[in-house]
């Protein structure tokens, strides 16, 4: 079994010289070694469209087109860069919580299932990290009923985990107005 080395060899694909120097600083801050694209790097850091499929896993900063394993927000921290580079080298896909990545979207996306008030309360309990028992206590219902609601939520939302149910049923549907 081979592990991801602690210091990666990272090449840069930049849109211009200014972006190039900015990306170089980010590579240095994240603790990795900057190498030329031709020097068989472990990974690529880019802010630009990569024309063909990159030869090695790439991490893109900001809205970049193409089939890219790692995507980070436009202003990533060194820690995020480090984690994303390691993850894509290990063969994983990385997506940051970038509001811009969400794009210019509608107030509420249609097509989500509409929940009952009780289901929303149960989801809020899941969001707060409560166990079924604790959720039951908070809502003054039986743990059995909580379990029943969670099963119904999973089915309605097509979720397979509590975290997924919270994101699909709560976070994506709340609108501030």
């Amino acid at each position, binding site marked *: 079994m081979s592990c991801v080395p602690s210091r990666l060899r990272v090449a840069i694909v930049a849109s211009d010289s200014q972006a190039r120097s900015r990306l170089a600083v980010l590579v240095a801050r994240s603790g990795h070694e900057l190498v030329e694209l031709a020097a068989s790097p472990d990974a690529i850091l880019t802010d630009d469209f990569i024309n063909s499929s990159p030869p090695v896993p790439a991490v893109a900063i900001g*809205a970049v087109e193409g089939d890219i394993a790692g995507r980070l927000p436009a202003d990533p921290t060194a820690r995020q860069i480090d984690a994303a580079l390691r993850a894509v080298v290990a063969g994983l896909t990385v997506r940051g919580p970038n509001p811009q990545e969400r794009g210019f979207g509608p107030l509420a996306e249609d097509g989500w299932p509409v929940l009952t*008030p009780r289901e929303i309360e149960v989801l809020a309990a899941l969001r707060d990290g409560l166990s079924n028992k604790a959720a039951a206590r908070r809502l003054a219902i039986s743990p059995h009923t909580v379990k029943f609601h969670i099963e119904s939520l999973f089915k309605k939302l097509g979720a397979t985990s509590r975290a997924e149910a919270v994101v699909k049923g709560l976070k994506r549907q709340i609108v501030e107005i």
Partner: protein
Amino acid sequence: MTDNVRDPLEALSDALVERVRRAQPLVARIEVEGRSMRSGTLWRKDVVVAAEQAFARVEEAKVVLGDGSSFAAHLAGRDPGTNVIAFRLDGAPEPAPLAAGEPHPGALALAFGADAASVSVRLGVIHSVGPAWHSRAGGRIDRRIVLDMTMGGREEGGAVLDAGGNLLGISTLGPRRRVLVIPTTTVEGVLEPLLSTGRVERGWLGLALQPVLVPEAMQAEADKSRGLMIMGVAKDGPAAQAGVLAGDILVTIGGEGVSRPANVAQRLGPEAIGQPIELRLLRAGKILSLMATVAARPSG
């Protein structure tokens, strides 16, 4: 003899090149220190518009127009609601006026963007045209125009023209990176307030809402099966001052039923600011009527 009959594909290609040549002066490359280049559109003399979402916290920029002339640009105003940002230039040329285009599904559209050297162009069909919609930040977009093309982040904000060379609007990236058009009329509608005050005022209640099924036992009382559950109330906001509580279910606003957040957004245009509005809510199985005074949406 067929010598004098143009090959149709060649004719199409030549026509496209001609369109691009005419539109090129409108294409603005917007450079911000420490960031990747972005695209914008020279909308009128000294004014470049672009996609607001691409310019978080930007105030100063350099703009290079399609003819290579370059200008210092400063922020004139931004509106996250319609995703329009306006920059003011000094001494830029007056663009040739373009008529607003009428989008039709299936019609060809050319999307322009800035490129390191000159311009980039994409050709696609108008994938769909829908009615007005409300964005996440509450702005009203006059039409929902979707283009059948992909686009890189640096191109959004560029002009989108129809086959006749009329201006459909500016491009922007929507959810799942779909390419949307902010229509010409929408840009025009916010440009005056942006240039004069730097922002666009919109109504605000200070509510976090989620669509909800009204429990069966209360459906008769509410006279409907869907409403909006109050998930949060902004401290000291209009709804809080009116007495709205988290857990209430909003069923009507200004006498009209609400089952989607857009129904509320429709009532919160700039004209609503300062006006009273009736909120009917379900609380503990009873209908409750409260009066709120719409405030201006806080910036940021």
